[in-house]
């Protein structure tokens, strides 16, 4: 059985001007330890797809149809409270801009410790610090104790993104959604972060959904690729298959 199955998922935004269909009838599945890249142009609904699985969209967005099945259990009807539990343990997410994703008024240490505390409420203060340091070490941040005292604006983009990943890992998630997680970073840093993802998968065995509009990123990291266009899933398959298909289509044009 797959870890995560999405069936016929449709999401719409209900604006005063009318309904906007952001995700149309999307189905895919994700195995354990698999990296799936969701590829498509900007604004094609990749990000909405991820956020709708986690139910993190604003009030005006509604899931119209579909099922989200996690290890055989349909979570589509879950309440906010149930979703909160899932978010803290099963799913986690890394966002596009690490500078805005971290709270500018809290030191990164505090933010990581907060995530640890929510996941493991039994730990003492020192154990939490310890765990936070471990996490920071895991994502490749040196000098965790000193680093923890810093505020997000004191960090570079790459380091801030590592902190966000550390927060995401605090939950020990089974699935990590990386929503354009490398787009805002320099090219060399991008490569480092992607390597980090591969390494983390090896260490923790989690699955990763990598949302990107960069074919290079997808080709480098993913096991399978899903193509999206205008809210629809136009193709899904192994990396080689999909890229061959794309080349094929472009040759025709």
């Amino acid at each position: 059985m797959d870890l995560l199955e999405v069936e016929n998922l449709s999401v719409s935004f209900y604006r005063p001007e009318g309904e906007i269909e952001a995700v149309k009838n999307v189905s895919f599945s994700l195995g354990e330890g698999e990296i799936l890249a969701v590829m498509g142009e900007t604004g094609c609904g990749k990000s909405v797809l991820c956020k709708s699985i986690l139910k993190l969209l604003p009030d005006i967005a509604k899931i119209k149809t579909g099922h989200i099945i996690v290890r055989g259990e349909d979570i589509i009807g879950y309440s906010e409270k149930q979703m909160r539990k899932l978010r803290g343990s099963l799913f986690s997410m890394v966002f596009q801009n690490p500078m805005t994703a971290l709270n500018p008024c809290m030191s990164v240490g505090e933010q990581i410790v907060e995530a640890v505390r929510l996941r493991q409420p039994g730990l003492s203060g020192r154990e939490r610090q310890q765990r936070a340091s471990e996490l920071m070490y895991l994502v490749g941040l040196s000098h965790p104790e000193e680093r923890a005292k810093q505020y997000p604006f004191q960090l570079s983009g790459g380091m801030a993104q590592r902190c966000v990943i550390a927060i995401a890992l605090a939950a020990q998630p089974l699935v990590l959604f990386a929503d354009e997680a490398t787009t805002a970073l320099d090219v060399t840093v991008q490569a480092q972060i992607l390597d980090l993802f591969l390494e983390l998968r090896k260490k923790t065995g989690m699955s990763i959904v990598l949302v990107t509009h960069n074919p290079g990123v997808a080709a480098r990291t993913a096991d399978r690729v899903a193509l999206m266009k205008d809210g629809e899933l136009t193709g899904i398959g192994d990396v080689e298959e999909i890229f061959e298909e794309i080349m094929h289509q472009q040759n025709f044009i």
Partner: protein
Amino acid sequence: MRKLCISKILYNMGKFALRVFALSVLVFLISRLAPGDPLYAYYGERVEKMSVADQEQARERLGLHEPLFTQYARWLQAAFHGDFGISYQYKTDVKEVIAARIGNTLVLGGLGFLLIFVFALGLGLFCAWREDRTADRIICRIGTVTSCVPEFWLSLLFLLVFAVWLDWLPGSGAYSVGEEGNVADRAAHLILPLAVVVLGHLWYYAFQVRNRLLEEVRADYVLLARMKGLSGRQVLFRHCLRGALPSYLSMMAVALPHILGGTYVVETVFSYPGIGTLAYESARYQDYNILMVVSLLTGTLVIFCNLLAGIVSGRIDPRMRIQNGAGGGEVRNF
């Protein structure tokens, strides 16, 4: 680091002194430019009974013939010794007149400020939490209406309803005759003016808090915080409030003199013996010496609070604190 702090304190004190100095010049100039003979400020109606020669002599003695600058210097010198002149209306030292009333204003304004401080934050938080739902909409409506009612009319309305029609509460003065030391009696006299002061200002600040929080709620970090498993309310209280707090505190520092100044009108309507009533009476009877001191006092408070606001937001907000170089762990960036 220590040196830096001292120089900063000195800098701020210098800024404060400079502004107060400018304020005193302004106040002095206005009072001297105002029509009417400045002689009145010293002698009052007696001036009319003086002969022209006497008047000239008095002018000479008081230095009113000298250039404005010399007059100002003399006034300032006297002011430094605590001599602000004589109140023409009360025939006593200005200092005494003001000292007798400032306590009442501080009680009314201070209590009003505290209540506004607490309620504005609470109301703002509640409205931000329930954004665009029924409760928020209703509160916003009511708030807009209350913020539109002029304070003096609200005072009249309360007087009419609670003091005249229902006769629940006393409507004038700070205490009943002969009950000066009775705390309960004083509290009863305080309720109506306090209610007007709070209602008149509350929504303005609560609305600012609400809007500031709504900005915070739209930031990306909210999503990450929810990703950790925090509930909406927890995110609001633990994360968003933290971002909004520095600007709230500095806003309230600026608001302090504003609220104190707002009591002036209310005091007048309720005949509450405070600085406001005093200022109003002095204005009517052109008692410039008192008016000058009241303006100076209030203005100094405003300047002080503005400075305080800057310092407060600089200390609390980590972004400003560290960029200003006053602490925070420096780690080499690799």
